[in-house]
């Protein structure tokens, strides 16, 4: 048991608090009652116990030994506990021989009935008396305050506080989430009521912040977390978002922005103006450096198997920068002129524009560039390596692999069985879609950079795989899938029945030949469509495609199907071949088919076709082309080094590395996947090249390859308000000419290409064209930059996170977003600014000068449906805008207000001045803004309907421009932020101060302060004043160097602790540990914050809490119940 002061002699002191208590509580009666309580030796009352004479009463009784424990019945302990503890101490007793009964906040102010109030007061006093008898003497402990300060928010509040503290020689971290400090004030033109220029008074302070040695400015950064560092100080984690521009090197010259092709609405100009993807919010920004907005890889690029940067070249095309576009294309694609023609373009499928009207014709644009520069060259390798690598097959997979390897310095050698290189590209795709010379050129470009291609060299005959493996550092097998699937119906071997690929190969290599009049093509894939269109060009009169399912299930590209139909190809759906009729002599004469119907979905997810029994019918024909898929010709390779294959007759490979079961031998493309599109074959080639490179350098072949190949982007784009404009069709030769092998599409002209490119929505914002890097002399730009995490320790934090404006769209009846000439106040503010989007001109959207302007007050404020509070600044800034509008345009200005709220120095005078200037004031909340004209003079105007409550009539005021005086709201993430900083939000969602009058910038979390509009709507004057106050609070803390903590910590009575460990996991501050020598729990007082959770849970009562022992609380309970 602690030393103590003998038998209790308790003094009870009841405060009148003027009339605050006395008016409700019968003080004499209470005092009388107090005298009757056990151990009470003195009971007195006084008008103001907190006053000096009041405290003197207590001290005398203590000094003269009448009393050794004190109960004061007055206001809330949160208000004056400290005061009376001091008094007790000065009276010579330990300050904790004191307890307070809250008979003001909890009694006199909340109780209607005087008798009941008196009773309640008695009960609380009885409780306090019983409790204080069990109080023990305690010592407050001191904890040092770390001298560093964190300020969150770089608006005028943050700036002001930072400068004040830094001036006092203390270290300040100023964190701002935007690229520059300045906050809302930087957007203002003039400040009321003095109409002085905001920039003129703000920017000097901003530069001081930048220059100040004691301020560490962290812009474009956000606080991630705040953890207790010790009992009183904080460990703060800050995320420094990647700017992609090196802050220390950038000179702010702005050349980058000049060349940047991406234009987006400027946040700083409230969307009235534009900025580039690499930008600086405004010329005086601090720090005066640029930032690149990157939303991430755009959907088109992400969806592309080889991640071709489509947005990049599209944006450049839109700006007529064609050469630059070519460079972007060649960054990741060695076969662009081929892809530009025949790629199935997953990019387009995922194009965001597709959700608005139609996707962009991305391949078309790529083709445009390659057509424009027919003689472009591929980049040449920058280094050379000795290793030779064998590649089997010169299809897109083989070519891509060779190219990627070559770029890494290797010497790839391609072995091709066919007389021409290109694989399926050359033999499987008809030249009216992909002219031969295009292929030849692409292949020559590859040869030019040192890729060797051996045609007519079938591996397995000319040379064996085994030899390749011995002679080459690595082998990549990409033999494609060239063996036709069979229908397996009678008569399939009759003359006049062709495999689709066989047919296409023959036409491609030997030229067109006669098939007869009527041709049937069986199958629904791209090759089938190619075959059909080729058949037409071979002179067939009637070509019909026979497909088991319906159009919806056809795997072929819809555009190709359309093209085929245009050319006259007929479609026969839900029909499957049963027998091919004819004989050796006549050859095929007809096809017997079965009608089909769609059944339940099969493995491919498409509905499975089911034959309808007895529905046979016959189609007569002269030739049948069967194009129902292909498989790899693995047999042709001869002995296969025991390479494993799948049941589908494809090679078995590791899907991450494409390595086969034989080390150093890789396989990819159709011979692994089965028939697939070009771009996926190229993807395989690229993948293999990466694997081979790692394999030869003995690197981990799997690490960090997740993002190879197609994926979906995480973000979504807001496309609302995008004007509709469908895709611009690519010119093609007229139908009549589509009987030859002339290429069908002729490609975009420059004008068309630019127009089509302009449809791009800039999903990724920065399009990664990297032009900025080319002009940056300081070499400040770094596309690889990553977010950085920084940890600091501080003793005090000031939150100055400011406000956000009410979103006027939430009140549709005011027409914001519907009527172009309805603006928010801040938008007009920007217009009035000479550096703003209109160079200081106040204009309507169509450029006219407004003749009449209506300003609607309290938009989103003083309205139960939105915010019930008054935003305080709107009346004044409306007056300011009224003045500026009248001054700049001479327009009639109408203010619609509920009440004019202009308290504050020189505000009323400002209001008077506006009245004299002839601004109109109409008292009444506006009902609606409408373009519904009822009289001629309302035609073409916006009509403001409002009740004029002063004359009691509904008025309709026609105006050209409406300005909405939107209110102030807490930041969207205020709740998240306050949780981070352990503080609360008050009504309206603004940060809650510790006391509305006496602690306006303190919070309930020690060491955390608030300043400016994050605490509640306020103007610049008040904001700056609060910032000063917060700075003063912080400085006084730092200068004292320590804080005293309430000694309400928990402790363990070891003689009673069984070491059951119940308390240990409950402590939120990990203050409790297990002392295994003694086998008992131990509380680290330096970490305990005194919540008492462990005490409540301790099953043997061994844990107790100072100031809140079980017995003290029991006594209080008995007390409050002993007198009701």
């Amino acid at each position: 048991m602690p030393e103590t002061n003998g038998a209790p002699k308790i003094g009870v002191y009841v405060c009148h608090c003027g009339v605050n208590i006395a008016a409700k509580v019968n003080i004499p009666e209470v005092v009388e009652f107090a005298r009757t309580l056990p151990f009470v030796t003195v009971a007195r009352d006084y008008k103001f116990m907190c006053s000096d004479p009041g405290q003197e009463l207590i001290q005398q009784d203590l000094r003269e030994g009448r009393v050794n424990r004190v109960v004061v019945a007055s206001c809330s302990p949160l208000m004056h506990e400290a005061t009376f503890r001091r008094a007790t101490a000065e009276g010579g007793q330990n300050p904790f021989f004191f307890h307070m009964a809250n008979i003001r906040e909890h009694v006199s102010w909340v109780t209607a009935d005087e008798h009941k109030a008196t009773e309640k007061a008695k009960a609380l006093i009885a409780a306090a008396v019983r409790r204080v008898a069990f109080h023990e003497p305690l010592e407050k402990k001191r904890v040092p305050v770390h001298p560093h300060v964190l300020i969150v928010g770089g608006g005028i509040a943050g700036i002001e506080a930072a400068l004040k503290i830094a001036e006092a020689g203390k270290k300040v971290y100023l964190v701002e989430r935007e690229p520059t400090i300045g906050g809302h004030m930087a957007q203002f033109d003039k400040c009321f009521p003095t109409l002085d220029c905001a920039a003129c008074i703000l920017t000097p302070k901003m530069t001081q912040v930048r220059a100040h040695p004691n301020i560490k400015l962290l812009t474009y950064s956000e606080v991630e977390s705040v953890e207790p560092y010790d009992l009183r100080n904080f460990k703060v984690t800050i995320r420094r978002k990647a700017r992609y521009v090196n802050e220390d090197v950038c000179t702010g010259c702005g050349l980058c922005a000049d060349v940047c092709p991406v234009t987006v609405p400027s946040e700083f100009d409230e969307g009235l103006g534009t900025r580039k993807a690499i930008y600086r919010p405004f010329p005086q920004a601090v720090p005066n450096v640029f930032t690149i907005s990157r939303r991430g890889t755009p959907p088109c690029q992400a969806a592309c198997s080889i991640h071709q940067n489509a947005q990049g070249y599209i944006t450049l095309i839109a700006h007529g920068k064609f050469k630059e576009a070519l460079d972007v294309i060649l960054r990741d694609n060695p076969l662009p002129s081929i892809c530009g023609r025949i790629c199935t373009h997953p990019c387009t499928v995922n194009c965001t524009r597709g959700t608005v009207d139609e996707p962009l014709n991305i391949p078309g644009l790529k083709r445009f560039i390659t057509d424009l520069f027919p003689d472009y060259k591929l980049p040449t390798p920058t280094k050379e390596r000795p290793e030779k690598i064998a590649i089997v097959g010169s299809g897109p997979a083989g070519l891509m692999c060779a190219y990627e390897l070559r770029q890494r310095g290797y010497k790839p050698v391609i072995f091709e069985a066919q007389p021409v290189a290109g694989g399926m590209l050359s033999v499987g795709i008809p030249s009216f879609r992909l002219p031969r010379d295009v292929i030849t050129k692409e292949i020559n470009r590859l040869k030019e950079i040192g890729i060797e291609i051996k045609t007519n060299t079938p591996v397995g005959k000319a040379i064996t795989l085994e030899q390749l493996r011995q002679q080459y550092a690595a082998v990549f097998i990409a033999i494609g899938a060239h063996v036709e699937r069979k229908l397996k119906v009678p008569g399939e071997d009759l003359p006049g029945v062709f495999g689709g690929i066989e047919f296409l190969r023959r036409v491609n290599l030997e030229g067109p030949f006669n098939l007869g009049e009527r041709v049937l093509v069986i199958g629904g894939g791209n090759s089938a469509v190619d075959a059909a269109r080729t058949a037409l060009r071979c002179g067939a009169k009637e070509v019909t495609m026979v497909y088991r399912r319906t159009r919806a299930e056809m795997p072929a590209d819809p555009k190709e199907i359309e093209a085929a139909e245009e050319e006259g190809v007929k479609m026969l759906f839900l029909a499957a071949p049963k027998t091919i009729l004819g004989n050796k002599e006549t050859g095929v004469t007809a096809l017997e088919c079965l009608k089909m119907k769609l059944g339940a979905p099969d493995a491919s997810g498409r509905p499975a076709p089911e034959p309808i029994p007895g529905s046979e019918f016959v189609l007569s024909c002269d030739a049948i082309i069967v194009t129902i898929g292909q498989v790899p010709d693995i047999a042709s390779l001869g002995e296969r080094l025991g390479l494993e294959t799948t049941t589908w007759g494809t090679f078995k490979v590791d899907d991450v590395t494409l390595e086969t079961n034989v080390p150093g031998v890789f396989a990819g493309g159709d011979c692994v996947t089965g028939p697939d599109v070009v771009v996926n074959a190229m993807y395989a080639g690229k993948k293999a090249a990466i694997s081979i490179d790692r394999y030869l350098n003995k690197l981990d072949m799997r690490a960090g390859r997740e993002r190879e190949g197609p994926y979906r982007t995480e973000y979504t784009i807001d496309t609302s308000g995008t004007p509709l404009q469908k895709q611009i069709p690519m010119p093609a030769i007229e139908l009549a000419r589509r009987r030859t092998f002339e290429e069908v599409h002729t490609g975009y002209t420059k004008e068309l290409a630019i127009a089509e490119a302009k449809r791009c929505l800039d999903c990724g914002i920065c399009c990664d064209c990297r032009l900025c890097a080319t002009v940056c002399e300081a070499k400040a730009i770094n596309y690889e930059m990553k977010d950085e995490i920084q940890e600091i320790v501080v003793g005090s934090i000031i939150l100055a996170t400011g406000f956000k404006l009410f979103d006027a769209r939430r009140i549709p009846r005011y027409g914001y977003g519907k009527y172009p000439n309805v603006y928010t106040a801040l938008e007009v503010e920007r217009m009035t600014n000479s550096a703003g989007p209109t160079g200081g001109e106040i204009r309507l959207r169509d450029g006219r000068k407004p003749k009449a302007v209506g300003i609607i007050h309290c938009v989103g404020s003083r309205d139960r449906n939105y915010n019930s509070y008054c935003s305080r600044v709107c009346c004044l800034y409306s007056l300011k805008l009224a003045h500026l509008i009248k001054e700049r345009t001479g327009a009639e200005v109408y203010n619609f207000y509920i009440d004019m709220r202009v308290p504050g120095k020189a505000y009323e005078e400002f209001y008077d001045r506006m009245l004299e200037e002839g601004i109109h004031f109409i008292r009444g909340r506006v009902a609606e803004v409408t373009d519904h004209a009822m009289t001629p003079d309302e035609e073409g105007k916006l009509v403001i309907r409002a009740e004029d409550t002063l004359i009691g009539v509904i008025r309709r005021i026609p105006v050209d421009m409406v300005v909405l005086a939107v209110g102030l709201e807490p930041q969207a993430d205020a709740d998240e932020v306050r949780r981070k900083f352990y503080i609360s939000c008050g009504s309206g969602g603004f940060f809650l101060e510790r006391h509305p009058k006496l602690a306006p910038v303190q919070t309930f979390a020690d060491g955390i302060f608030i300043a400016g509009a994050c605490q509640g709507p306020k103007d610049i004057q008040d904001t700056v004043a609060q910032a000063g106050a917060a700075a003063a609070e912080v400085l006084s803390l730092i200068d004292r160097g320590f804080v005293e903590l309430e000694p309400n910590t928990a402790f363990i009575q070891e003689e009673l602790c069984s070491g059951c460990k119940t308390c240990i996991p409950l402590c939120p501050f990990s203050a409790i540990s297990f002392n295994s020598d003694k086998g008992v729990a131990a509380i680290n007082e330096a970490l305990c914050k005194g919540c008492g959770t462990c005490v409540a849970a301790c099953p043997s009562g061994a844990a107790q809490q100072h100031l809140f022992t079980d017995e003290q609380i029991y006594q209080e309970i008995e007390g409050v119940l002993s007198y009701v």
Partner: protein
Amino acid sequence: MSKPKVGFYWCASCGGCEEAVVDLAEDVLKVVEAVDIVFWPVALDFKRADVEAMKDGELAACFVNGAIRTSEQEEMAELLREKSQLLIAFGSCSHLGGIPGLANLWDRQAIFEYVYKEAPSVTNPDGVVPQEQTKLGSNGYVLTLPAFRDTVRALDQVVEVDYYLPGCPPPVKLIVNAVMAILENKLPPKGTVLAPDKALCEECPRKPTKPDKLALKELKRPHQILIDSEKCLLAQGLVCLGPATRSGCGAPCVSANMPCTGCLGPTSRVKDYGAKALSAIASLIDSEDEQEIAALMEHIVDPVGTFYRYSLPASLLHRRVRRGATGGAQA
């Protein structure tokens, strides 16, 4: 000089406490040697009259086990109080009310209704229930039975108690220590519970296996799991009340894979055993979701029976609230 006289008496209890005395085994001889047992109905034929005949304080010490349920038990308790210098509450029932104390969840009428009428094993067509007085035949002799009270009480809720020997039954070790203390006159201040004032974990063989940060993701009952005979039972999800219960028994139950049910009662600092035990268990539930918490707690099928198994009469609420009952003490 004559040996100090000692008495044993048996109120509402199972008799296990008497067994405990026998369990002293050869030690009992020491006792018999040292003292003169003058009242022990369960073992020797003494009548109430013999006690009444004694002088006040004639008994050096009297060990009373069992709770107080009937008028007869009240009278005996008072009588023995007069005749004894030391009155010792012996065992959980007299210490805290014990298992019989759980009857405080009902009252006399409800109990009679069940025991004499509703219980499945009862055939009582005439619905006869015990009467305090029954006239016998012609001679008008009135047979009387003790009154059956609504509420079960611990011994110290009826008479002054000097010491408490906790446990169901009290562990032999504690009994021996107590007797020796009396003989050697080395007694602690009156009102003390004659057992260590630390919880059971202190002497639990499984203590070392208890994790520092225990979080209960599920609560189990012994028959629901294969119990690891080494590991802390709480850590296995069993509701073991060791952390809330006085030590001194040597943790025999826990050693036999049986979670502690709390017969030695709370430590000196705890006002309400059940509440504290409950608080400790609940605090360790590993969830912050209201529904989930409730769901987890459902696994404690009988909270009162679990947390107040031995201590309901001595608890703050002491008995179930009866609608319409008027406040004020009643017995």
